[in-house]
């Protein structure tokens, strides 16, 4: 006998979790999908955001989300510098496949161990007024700490979509993934465009970090659990498609909460990998891919 109470709660919290996954994966859709930069260190930057939120919340009582939105422009500049280094060292020589991957792996590792040395292995959490209370609709309960990330996550994806559709730079980001030569003909500098886009990607990671630490306590090594998730979402969503990212994030969120509800939480890290492998094996173009 199916328990509707349990199922509907699981579905709702799956969608809420999908909101977080939107925020987490949108940067990967930009960097990996649109720019073809395999930034496997993206989850590490998310953790960095989470600990920025923790640091300012624990020491100065700043709202975690505000802290990370203030930090985002700095992350943007950092991201631009990082892409420039990446371009000069690897992409210019066409060496990005092996060495670029190893470069980002090194970064991932340096950030993780760095956070570990600074903050230790304890789980850290933040305090804010909206963590705790929730809304009850019938037998479904929606905590604010889950609803806020959903709203912010969707706003982030919407913002990026709007930027890509309305501005020259945004359209150039889409163009650079398809034909850098043609972009140069209409007066865009592909390297500079990629630099800007990568900066945006890192900035989204920092904000996603704030959302993550609002939802759950965080320690440096849980970033690794997100590697499979973000790439599963990106691939399942069709690499470059932002609506695809949202759909895939929701699907993964629902799949994970269903597993947690019916099999137990210790199995949920394996779900994203299953989805990733299945997508790669059956339909590498993803659900909304061309």
């Amino acid at each position, binding site marked *: 006998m199916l328990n509707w109470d349990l199922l509907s709660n699981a579905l709702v919290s799956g969608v809420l979790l999908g909101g977080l996954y939107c925020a987490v994966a949108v940067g990967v859709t930009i960097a990996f999908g649109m720019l073809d930069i*395999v930034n*496997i260190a993206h989850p590490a930057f998310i953790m960095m955001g989470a600990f920025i939120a923790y640091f300012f919340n624990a020491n100065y009582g700043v709202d975690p989300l505000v802290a990370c939105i203030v930090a985002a422009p700095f992350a943007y500049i950092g991201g631009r510098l990082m892409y420039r*280094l990446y371009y000069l*060292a690897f992409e210019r020589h066409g*060496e990005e*496949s*092996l*060495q670029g*991957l*190893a*470069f980002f*792996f*090194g*970064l991932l*590792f*340096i950030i*993780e*161990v*760095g956070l*570990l*040395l600074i903050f230790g292995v304890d789980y850290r959490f933040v305090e804010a007024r909206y963590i705790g209370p929730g809304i009850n609709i019938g037998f479904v309960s929606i905590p604010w700490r889950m609803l806020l990330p959903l709203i912010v996550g969707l706003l982030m994806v919407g913002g990026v979509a709007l930027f890509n559709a309305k501005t020259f730079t945004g359209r150039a980001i889409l163009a650079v993934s398809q034909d850098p030569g043609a972009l140069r003909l209409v007066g865009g500098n592909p390297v500079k465009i990629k630099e800007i886009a990568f900066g945006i990607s890192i900035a989204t990671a920092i904000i996603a970090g704030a959302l993550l630490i609002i939802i759950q306590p965080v320690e440096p*090594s849980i970033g*690794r*659990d997100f*590697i*499979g998730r973000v*790439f*599963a979402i990106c*691939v399942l969503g069709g690499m470059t498609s932002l609506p695809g990212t949202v759909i895939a994030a929701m699907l993964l969120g629902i799949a994970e909460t269903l597993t947690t509800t019916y099999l137990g939480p*210790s*199995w949920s*890290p*394996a779900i*994203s*990998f*299953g989805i*990733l*492998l299945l997508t*790669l*094996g059956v339909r*590498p173009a993803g659900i909304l891919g061309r």
Partner: protein
Amino acid sequence: MSLHSTGNPAISEKRARLSARTIVPLVGMAIAIAIVFFGLDWVGTDYGYLAAYTVLQYVVLATAWNILGGYAGYVNFASAAFFAVGVYTSVIVYKTVQLPLIATIPLAAVAAGLLGLAVGYLTLRLRGTFFSIATLALSVVMNTLVVNWAFVGGSRGVYVLRPQNIDYFGPYTRYLCIVMLIMAIISVLIARAVERSWLGRGLAALKDDEIAAECAGVPALRLKLAATAISGALMGAAGAPFPFFVTYVDPATAFSLSIAVNTIAMPLIGGTSTWIGPVIGAVLLGSLQQIATVTISSALNLLIVGVLMVIFITLAPNGIVGLVQKIRERRT
């Protein structure tokens, strides 16, 4: 007269130089190993064997990684997962039929090799990036599997009893060290054989330009699968003696970050294009870490490895071997 006849002095001279260039380091290595071993026997402490074991284990892992990563350019991030498959195969054998270690190693190699084949079959047909991403996620999944598997200890871990002494070899640590040494030599020989065979040449062609190579008739998928299986099998083999080495295994040690990072950092720092690169990287980084863990914390230790790796791939992409070659060329 064919060009390949040995009558051509330039070619035969080149061949002679080539063979000298490979025999000299091999002989050098053998002498170094002998010195280290007699030295360790002379010192007579267990710590020496433990340190040597760890360094040799990294020689196997780095060499194995390089067969796919260095020769074919496919980055495998799941070395810890393949290693752990070896570790847990060994644990399962220990808890069921209790075969001797020598018989367990091939089983571990087969298990890890099959894992390599399975993951490779699903992802190697696509661009190399997808393979790398899949391997990244693979470690997390294998970890999840083991944590949920109570028979092999789950997240609490499992104890493995080992004999104090073993016939003909003396203390068990010394025996483990010798086993690992033999495995290191075998894996270096395999890597060398792969490098010089049609397999290595095919992989090198794929690394340069996969589409062109495929058009020229290189069976891309089959070569990549072969390399993944060999590489995975060697990593699994390296994991098999591990439970007896540490006597207590839990997922955190079997899937440790230091294995994942070192296995990639060592070939990249040593140089990925030849078999000697990973060996140099493993011996250098491995011994440095053995010395450093005594003096500084292991987290800081790993941070240094990560930073070194990033510096090397940015500034010296061909590793130490590449640097040495550059200096030699400048001299001549």
